[in-house]
Each structure stands twice: as structure tokens, then as C-alpha cells.
């Protein structure tokens, strides 16, 4: 999305306050004023009812339910902001379950002093992301915490989706010979964030690739059904951590090829500079699929036809050797074990 265009077409309603204060979370006039200011009209839909305690809708059958809180710093980063992240994140988690995301809840924890223009920009991103993914935001909440007890804005989204009829997503279905696919360049999001962190900041054109993956996932399930054994989005902890979780849960080994892992050059440069390993850097617009070997190439081709899948690649496979371990073959042919991230990834001096 392009925020600047949206902002132009969607001016903020005229308000008699510039910043969020504690009163906006008190439940009284200010809260109602915020709710009725037109600010939240952005997100209007027939189910969203600001004045009751919850939303009512009809859904049948197997449902997926997921939650995530978003606490990113800084809130605005190259390529996006916390708003679209919060929508895409939960939409994607539902998609990773093999579900078609339907309804989202949206809950804000605002820090006293957040400016309304910042909040408005975030809301615009939320709206755009919600529309793009096709979900409805049906229930919400706004709390305000004292200055110094929050970090501008935290967002929780929880989502309900309907399981795709052909989906059979489970770690139990992963088997030896399955191929590991990543849907795009890795580490882009995490490095975009790091580029604006105090003490580390650098100039770059790297932008977060946060995007909704549900349409892509739905199309893959339409075509390949239960030949897709597992979806995972390698967010916190990166690709390495998710691969380790899969190895642990399946009790199988995983081999990956360094040369096949797609990383854009800028990201690579930043990783070199800070001493980070792209395999451990957080992603947002990327998912991993473990698919049966027979359909892996077709699946990759299909994936590559999508907006967010052009750089998709088969990076490895599931093996019976070294159970519970992930082994990387380096570009120069050496091998090493890839462990989970220990603690946080911190920039190194050496």
C-alpha cells in the first residue's frame, strides 16, 4: 500500500485534541468522543458495533482462532507501520493454520502523548491491510496508559477463520522427502526495522515486506490440497527457529542449502555490517511450506505467480538423518548445524 496516497484521500476528521491523554481510555466522554469522532469510521462495516461488548456473526464448522500482540519499535519503519503489521500478522497466522481468515478483533494500548496524526496514519494502514486481506474488523478496544508505561502504541489482533475444506495442515503430516519452500526473500522485515533503531541505524532503501499471505495460501490449498503438509510464518526467531521447531515437533531432520536461500543484497550487506545471520532475522511477508516432493516444483511455480511469491525458492528437504536437527550446507560446501536463536540477536563487535 501507499500511505501517502491514502492519507491524501482520507483526511483525519477535525478533532479538538492533538494527542491521546489518559481520559481517552477512561471509558467516559473522551473515550466516546474518540469513538465517535469519525476516527474509527474508517473501519466501519455492518458487524462492527462500537457500542456493545462484542460482535455477533454466523460461522459454521471448523474454525481457526489466533491472537498476537504487536509491540514493534519504532512504530513507523521503512515500508510500513505497526498497523498493517498487526492485521497481516494475525491474518497470516490464520492462513498458516490452513484457514480462510474472516473476522478480526482490534485492541489498542495507547501511550499517553501519542499524536492523533500518528494514530490516524496507523489506522489508515489498518484499513488498507484489512481491505487487502478481505477480513472484517468486528470488535475492538482502546486503552490508554501513562506516559512512560507504554511505547506509543501496542496492538493486539485476534482472528477467527474458517478452515479451508482441502486443508490438512499438521506437523504430523510432515514426512521424509518433503521439500521446504520459502515464499520470498528472507530477513527483509527485520533488517528494515533494525535500520531505524537507536545506535544501529543506517541508510537503506530496504523496506519491510509485510503483506497478507492468505490469498496466496488459499490458492495453493485450492490446487494442492493435502499435498501441503505444513505452513509456518518465520516471524520472531526467523527461518532458523521455525525450522528447528518443525524438526523438534516432527522428530525428523531438515537439510537446507545456503545457496538457495533468497536474501536481497541490501539485507545481506546489513547482516554483514552488524554481524547478524539472516536465518535468525524476523520476517513478516514470508511463509514457509513443507510440501510433498511430487508437487514441490509445481507448487513453487504457482507460488511464483503471486505478487508476494516471485522470489520463492525450495531451500531444503526433510530427511531421516540427524533427527530433530537442522543442517545447513554452506555455499562453499561445508556443513553446520543451525540451532534456534539464543536470546535476542544482537549486533556483534566481532
Amino acid at each position, binding site marked *: 500500500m501507499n500511505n501517502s496516497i491514502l492519507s491524501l484521500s482520507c483526511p483525519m476528521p477535525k478533532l479538538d485534541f492533538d494527542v491521546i491523554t489518559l481520559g481517552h481510555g477512561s471509558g467516559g466522554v473522551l473515550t466516546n468522543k474518540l469513538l465517535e469522532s469519525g476516527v474509527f469510521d474508517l473501519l466501519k462495516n455492518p458487524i462492527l458495533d462500537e457500542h456493545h461488548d462484542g460482535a455477533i456473526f454466523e460461522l459454521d464448522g471448523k474454525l481457526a482462532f489466533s491472537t498476537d500482540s504487536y509491540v514493534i519499535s519504532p512504530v513507523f519503519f521503512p515500508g510500513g507501520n505497526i498497523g498493517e503489521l498487526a492485521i497481516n500478522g494475525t491474518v497470516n497466522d490464520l492462513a498458516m493454520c490452513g484457514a480462510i481468515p474472516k473476522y478480526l478483533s482490534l485492541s489498542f494500548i495507547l501511550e499517553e502523548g501519542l499524536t492523533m496524526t500518528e494514530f490516524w496514519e496507523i489506522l489508515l494502514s489498518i484499513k488498507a491491510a484489512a481491505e487487502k486481506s478481505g477480513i472484517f474488523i468486528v470488535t475492538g478496544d482502546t486503552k490508554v496508559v501513562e506516559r512512560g508505561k507504554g511505547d506509543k502504541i501496542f496492538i493486539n489482533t485476534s482472528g477467527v477463520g474458517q478452515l479451508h475444506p482441502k486443508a490438512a495442515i499438521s506437523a504430523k503430516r510432515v514426512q521424509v522427502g518433503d521439500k521446504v519452500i520459502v515464499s520470498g*526473500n528472507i530477513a527483509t522485515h527485520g533488517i528494515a526495522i533494525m*535500520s531505524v533503531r537507536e545506535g544501529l541505524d*543506517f*541508510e*537503506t*532503501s*530496504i523496506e519491510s515486506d509485510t503483506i497478507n499471505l492468505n490469498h496466496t495460501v488459499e490458492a495453493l490449498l485450492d490446487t494442492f490440497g493435502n499435498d501441503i503438509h505444513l505452513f509456518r510464518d518465520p516471524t520472531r526467531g526467523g527461518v532458523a527457529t521455525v525450522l528447528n521447531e518443525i524438526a523438534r515437533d516432527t522428530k525428523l531432520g531438515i537439510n537446507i542449502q*545456503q*545457496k*538457495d*536461500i*533468497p*536474501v*536481497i*543484497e*541490501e*539485507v*545481506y*550487506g*546489513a547482516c*554483514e*555490517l552488524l*554481524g547478524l545471520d*539472516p536465518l535468525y532475522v524476523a520476517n513478516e511477508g514470508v511463509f514457509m511450506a513443507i510440501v510433498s516432493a511430487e508437487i514441490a516444483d509445481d507448487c513453487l511455480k504457482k507460488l511464483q505467480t503471486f505478487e508476494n511469491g516471485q*522470489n520463492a525458492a525450495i531451500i531444503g528437504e526433510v530427511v531421516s538423518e540427524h533427527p530433530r536437527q537442522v543442517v545447513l550446507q554452506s*555455499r562453499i560446501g561445508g556443513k553446520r548445524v543451525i540451532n534456534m536463536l539464543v536470546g535476542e540477536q544482537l549486533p*556483534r*563487535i*566481532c
Partner: protein
Amino acid sequence: MCLAIPGKIKSIEYQYDGLVRMAKVVFGGITKEASLEMVPDAKEGDYVLVHVGVAISIVDEEEAQKTFKYLEEIGEIDELVQHSQIDASEGGTQWRN
């Protein structure tokens, strides 16, 4: 120890009332500021080795080539590795790690 990587000087400016020479150095598409106080001869376009924000050496292209000629020189390699083949892409194109 001492993670240091080579980057290309994009531009140079003076800070602290002209006392300190600082450069914008490009590393595979990202740009970071680095002090040039340790490399007074460095100029735009040079590759410098940067460690914790300080350029500590200018990279010598001629010397760099020696590594690729070493095996040949010691008489152990038949085909010369083509320079074109080993030169890295400098653009913003996709990079496979």
C-alpha cells in the same frame, strides 16, 4: 574478533568545524557513516574496511587479485579463474546468501 567489512565511499563531508572527515560508506546497498580519520588518503570511490564505525584501511585492489593468482603462481592451477566470474554484483539485484 573485530568484525570489519569492506564498503565503498559514496561521499565525504567534514564535521566538528572541519576537523573530522566522515564518509558515507555503502555496503551492498546500505549506507552507514564512518570516520575517515584513520585513512587520510581515502577518497570517494575507494573501498575501505570499516570496524565499529571507523574506517581502518583502504582495500588494495591489486593485492586482492593476488589471492586468485596464488594457486596459479605456486603452479598448482591449470585454468586461470576469470576475473569476470569472481567479481561480485554491486547493484541492488537479488543476492543468494
